[in-house]
């Protein structure tokens, strides 16, 4: 059964019936993690890199920002028995949706900050599909961690 993850949102699960899914990943980034041993995983859809621009908002909606959302994602999966060293990590999104081609575009900044946070916390990415101009959808089955990606204009692929 599909569990929808909205924008600035996160869901974790160890229910084998659940399929976590999020749409409209433009400049936003989707981070999916899965622990094969305990069959638990999570999906985060964040919008902005740095919560210091609005700490009040970050308290209220930590999933809006990479620096508050990513730790929350991992810690929430830890609560379901997940261990960082066993977790498969997938990162998708970070498109340049701004037509003006602004250099410090948010998609790229989001991706840079994911890599920075991961590096600080000894996390290595197992699969990524980032950049470009399209919108992305990602879904992950909690039963076995199988994950699918769809980029706008293309077919859905298993990753």
């Amino acid at each position: 059964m599909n569990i929808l993850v909205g924008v600035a949102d996160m869901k974790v699960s160890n229910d084998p019936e659940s399929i976590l899914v999020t749409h409209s990943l433009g400049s936003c980034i989707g981070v999916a993690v899965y622990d094969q041993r305990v069959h638990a995983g999570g999906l985060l859809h964040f919008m902005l890199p740095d919560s210091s621009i609005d700490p009040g908002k970050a308290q209220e909606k930590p999933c809006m920002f990479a620096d508050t959302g990513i730790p929350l994602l991992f810690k929430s999966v830890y609560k379901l028995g997940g261990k960082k060293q066993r977790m498969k990590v997938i990162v998708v999104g970070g498109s340049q949706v701004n037509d003006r081609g602004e250099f410090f575009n948010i998609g790229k900044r989001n991706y840079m900050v994911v890599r920075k946070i991961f590096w600080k916390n000894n996390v290595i990415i197992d699969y990524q599909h980032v950049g470009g101009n399209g919108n992305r959808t990602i879904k992950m089955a909690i039963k076995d961690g199988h994950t699918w990606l769809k980029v706008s204009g293309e077919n859905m692929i298993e990753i």
Partner: protein
Amino acid sequence: MAYNILIVDDSLPMRSVIKKTIKASGVNVGKLFEVSNGRDALALLKKEWLDLVLVDYNMPNMNGLEFIAEMKKDELLKSIPVIMTTVEGSRQRIKEFIEKGATDYIKKPFTPEEARDKLYKVIGGATDGEASSYTGDEALDF
């Protein structure tokens, strides 16, 4: 199996980066050593059992190629796999590294993912991701 690994690089921060990458890679690390020059590395190799050496090419006094040449002269050391880390991009140089005995190379700048893939390629295979015995002292957020 736990791998004993030696890092040889005159740059203190680069040694830290390589150590951190090894820790994050999931490779089962036994002992992890770091030295700043080839001479100290050779002395250590005579005392400790090592399964892999990562050596920087551009070091003062003894560069990575000269270090590998010394290893190759020794019966016990010559079969230890060596990964050359380097900013070199010229095909001729890379070819020379492999011809002179480097098992593989990691070109700087590198992502931790690229380094991990090279480590697995040289040591052989991924692990099941269980915690390695190597512990660092970083303050992690999660």
